[in-house]
């Protein structure tokens, strides 16, 4: 306790403690003087001798202070106070430094908060690292990830030893009716033990039990429960009407992504004869304790061979693959993009640090004498270093404070964003992890900014500094070199950032300019959720016919049509397809996606018919309809790409193709060829698409309307028409075609926006750096310039010196940046489209941009230097 009291006294009653010491030293001197006088010296000599014997009194006092308790804290406090004073003396510089650091720290905190939520936050499942996803493979057909068939799942489930448990779910959409508006909800049938496998226990009610496969019971996802039942705790026991069936709610799941959120879960009945061809099972597994994913893969390989041997026909080419559960939250793309953004923001921080270091350095030189005096008075080197470090840490702390405000604003904005593919955006927050990161960045930036000035500070040669006063000529050369190195580093970092920005922007532009095939202007898409009976007794066809008929009578609607799958917004059902005349030995057929369309669809999305004819009302669906004879003559249209593939160098019209080749092998006549489109994604190239006619069995539910003016203003009439025809029909996902496209590239958009902002800031900061070093250089060498001019140097000669001074570090920075960019840009490759990572145009443009900025700064300063009046400049000496 005693030492605490001492520290307290030393820290907070410093004045008293110091006064005491002063008085003691004074009395000691007095006693010494008395002694000398008593020994016979005259008072004057005595005083001088005492002064000599004592040496530097301040040094003694300093030493006493150093041995006192809390000396470290005390020193820290003094230096902190001095730093604050120094920063307040220089408000302009302080504000600029704090702003730059706040920008860097704020931006990195915001990016990290997204990173943390999407990639670092653990899954809400017990021992999530043991959870894996399983899929089948058919490598001989080039399929690396196929859903399980029920039979394969049962086989694996019964035989595997690597897993503590495996379970499957089969998701589908269903109509929820009963109280309130009818609604389409997503649901999943899950096998027994699904929730146990995930490690999730219901927060209300209970899990399904093993014998309940056929029971009409349901478990609710948390979000669904909150949205639909307002988090009513009495919900177990209530009855849910799904597709006309009644299901009793038995439990509610805890909050958590993915999957167990916005859904209804029903038990999956175990069939006696499990289906071998219908591949709809998603399978999750929990590895047994101590079993690695590799070991489990090896076991599955063995099982696949056994299964192939048992059923060579059905299971030919069968294999299994395992994915870590991490990808449930963030798709691989998300990881890449977020990593790249984190690196980009890191570069931004480094550039800001470079600038702050430069400013501190320049300011440190202006205080050259102060530092020299301090060291002459006995300030230790360590102390000077500490002083500089404390100052830059103070700056970075202030920057962090402001940066956190900035980050908080960003985070609030981010939470309202909706970027398909970045998980948990709405859960992004400045939580302790993020704050730890911010703390780390603050410390790092503080130390980094202080590094150059701190190394520089003790190097000041005391004598030279004191003699030269403010005009250092010899020392300034070294200082200019340090400045130039910092600027070169900044330019290199800015180069990296700008090249990434340029590459991403060019890919984005390329994506937008890609010929899409379809037209998007004045077009609107929406979905209708049909009840199940629409597909059975022809009600759906009646509805769609009368609906489209009435739409075409509307003068505001130019065209309208329906399709089974919305463009650019999978799922993408596929089929093997082959020309009927082909020999069967030609290997596996190409896989094309198929769409059921109404005749008006092509016009509505603006896809031109290249050859042949469009569908007519007489074209019937390719499937057998209940109560109707098997269709004797089937018709299809092909996208140009499919036609080229199936009938190279032939006229495909009138030729026959086999649909679902290898499965049902339906023979159909090709009646038309449709222009190619980027149906499956702007970066996916022309899609292979097979168009099938709609009918009583196949009722497309995605609608496209083309209106004369703004489609949004035409939509109320459409909505009224729908509710007039069937008041119970839910309308979903009303979006303009433009919006659908823009959502399909939300990744690239996010990347472009953020990188553009970062690139802009990087350019700004780097040009500030170049500007600053030149300004410093010109100021320091005013005298020299004056002398040169007095001796007859031309103005252009002076300009040349300045330009060399500014452009050299920029050039060096560009060269280094270029080399590093060539090396690093391959990590960008997966995000680029139509641009190579080493794209000469981008590199050249970025170089020109940076050089241009530097040149501008040079001319501004050069102009000033040229106007130097030799007489005035020399007088400054």
């Amino acid at each position, binding site marked *: 306790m*005693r*030492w605490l009291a*001492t520290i307290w006294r030393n820290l907070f009653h410093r004045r008293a403690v110091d006064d005491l*010491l002063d*008085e*003691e*030293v004074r*009395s*000691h001197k*007095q*006693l*010494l003087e*008395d*002694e000398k006088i*008593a020994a016979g010296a005259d008072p004057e000599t005595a005083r001088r001798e005492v002064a000599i*014997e*004592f*040496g530097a009194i301040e*040094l*003694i*006092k300093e*030493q*006493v202070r*150093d*041995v*006192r*308790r809390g000396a470290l804290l005390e020193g820290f406090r003094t230096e902190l106070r001095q730093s604050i004073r120094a920063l307040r003396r220089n408000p302009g510089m302080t504000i600029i430094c704090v702003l730059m650091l706040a920008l860097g720290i704020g931006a990195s905190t915001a990016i990290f908060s997204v990173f943390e939520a999407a990639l670092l936050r653990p899954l809400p499942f017990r021992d999530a690292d043991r959870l894996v996803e399983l899929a089948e493979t058919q490598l001989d057909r080039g399929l690396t990830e196929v859903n399980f068939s029920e039979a394969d799942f049962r086989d694996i489930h019964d035989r595997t030893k690597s897993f503590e448990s495996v379970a499957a779910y089969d998701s589908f959409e269903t109509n929820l009716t009963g109280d309130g508006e009818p609604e389409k909800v997503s649901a999943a049938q899950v096998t027994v033990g699904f929730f146990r496998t995930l490690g999730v226990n219901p927060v209300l009610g209970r899990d399904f039990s093993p014998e309940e496969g056929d029971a009409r019971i349901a478990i609710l996802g948390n979000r669904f429960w909150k949205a639909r039942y307002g988090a009513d705790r009495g919900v177990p026991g209530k009855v849910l009407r799904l597709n006309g069936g009644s299901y009793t709610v038995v439990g509610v799941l805890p909050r958590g992504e993915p999957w167990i959120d916005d859904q209804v879960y029903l038990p999956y009945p175990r069939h006696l004869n499990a289906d071998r061809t219908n591949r709809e099972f998603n399978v999750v597994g929990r590895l047994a304790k101590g079993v690695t994913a590799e070991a489990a893969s090896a076991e599955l390989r063995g099982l696949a061979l056994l299964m192939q041997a048992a059923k060579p026909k059905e299971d030919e080419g069968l294999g299994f693959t395992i994915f870590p559960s991490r990808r449930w939250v963030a798709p691989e793309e998300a990881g890449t993009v977020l990593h790249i953004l984190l690196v980009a923001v890191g570069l931004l921080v480094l550039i800001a640090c470079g600038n702050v270091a430069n400013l501190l350095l320049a300011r440190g030189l202006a205080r050259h004498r102060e530092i020299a005096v301090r060291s002459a008075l006995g300030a230790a080197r360590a102390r000077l270093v500490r002083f500089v470090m404390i100052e830059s840490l103070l700056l970075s702390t202030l920057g962090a404070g402001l940066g956190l405000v900035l980050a908080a604003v960003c985070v609030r904005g981010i939470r309202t964003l909706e970027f398909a593919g970045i998980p948990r955006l709405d859960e992004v927050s400045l939580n302790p992890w993020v704050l730890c990161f911010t703390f780390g960045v603050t410390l790092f930036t503080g130390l980094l900014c202080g590094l150059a000035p701190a190394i520089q500070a003790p190097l000041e040669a005391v004598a030279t500094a004191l003699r030269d006063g403010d005009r250092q000529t010899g020392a300034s050369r070294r200082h200019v070199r340090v400045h130039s190195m910092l600027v070169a580093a900044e330019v290199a970092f800015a180069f990296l950032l700008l090249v990434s920005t340029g590459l991403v922007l060019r890919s984005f532009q390329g994506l937008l300019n890609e010929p899409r095939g379809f037209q998007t202007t004045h077009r609107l898409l929406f979905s209708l959720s049909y009840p199940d009976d629409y597909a059975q007794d022809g009600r759906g066809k009646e509805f769609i016919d009368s609906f489209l008929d009435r739409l075409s009578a509307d003068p505001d609607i130019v065209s309208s049509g329906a399709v089974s799958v919305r463009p650019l917004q999978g799922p993408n059902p596929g089929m093997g397809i082959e020309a009927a005349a082909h020999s069967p030995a030609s290997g596996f057929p190409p896989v094309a996606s198929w769409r059921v369309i109404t005749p008006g669809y092509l016009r509505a999305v603006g896809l031109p018919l290249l050859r042949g004819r469009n569908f007519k009302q007489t074209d019937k669906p390719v499937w057998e309809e209940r109560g109707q004879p098997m269709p004797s003559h089937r018709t299809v249209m092909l996208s140009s790409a499919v036609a080229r593939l199936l009938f190279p160098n032939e006229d495909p019209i009138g030729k026959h193709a086999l649909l679902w080749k290898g499965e049902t092998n339906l023979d159909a006549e090709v009646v038309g060829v449709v222009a190619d489109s980027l149906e499956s994604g702007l970066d996916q190239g022309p899609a292979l698409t097979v168009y099938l006619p709609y009918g009583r069995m196949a009722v497309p539910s995605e609608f496209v309307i083309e209106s004369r003016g703004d489609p949004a203003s035409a939509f109320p009439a459409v909505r009224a028409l729908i509710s007039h025809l069937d008041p119970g029909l839910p309308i979903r996902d009303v979006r303009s075609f433009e919006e659908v496209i823009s959502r399909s590239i939300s990744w690239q958009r996010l990347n472009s926006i953020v990188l553009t902002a970062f690139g802009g800031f990087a350019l700004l900061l780097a040009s500030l750096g170049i500007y600053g070093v030149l300004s410093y250089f010109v100021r320091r060498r005013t005298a020299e310039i004056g002398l040169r001019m007095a001796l007859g140097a031309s103005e252009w000669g002076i300009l040349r010196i300045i330009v060399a001074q500014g452009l050299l570090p920029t050039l060096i920075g560009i060269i280094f940046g270029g080399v590093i960019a060539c090396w690093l840009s391959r990590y960008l490759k997966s995000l680029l489209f139509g641009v190579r990572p080493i794209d000469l145009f981008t590199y050249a443009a970025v170089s020109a941009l940076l050089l241009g900025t530097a040149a501008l700064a040079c001319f501004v300063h050069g102009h000033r230097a040229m106007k130097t009046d030799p007489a005035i400049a020399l007088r400054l000496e």
Partner: protein
Amino acid sequence: MPPSANIALLQGTLELLILKVLALQAMHGLGISRRIAQVTNGAFQVKPGSLFPALHRMEEAGWLTSEWGESENNRRARFYSLTRPGRRKLKEETDNWGRISAAMAGALETS
């Protein structure tokens, strides 16, 4: 003054000497340094630069206590005296010193 390489040893020595000379009576700084010079036959000339830090450190450690008083020639001076922990410390350090010096002497003789 002995070379500065012996600072660590000397600091302990100086503190022991201060404790020792204060054991008899309270003294002010100059008195302490004069007495040390006297008892060591002039081997230790304690300068203020060493004396003040040592005194303040020892006071903070609780071995010394100090108060203002009148010097022999009626000057105001800060007088230091030993506390109870200071006396204990003196005894400990004296024993220690005896052991160390005996050991050192032995070591230097044998080699």
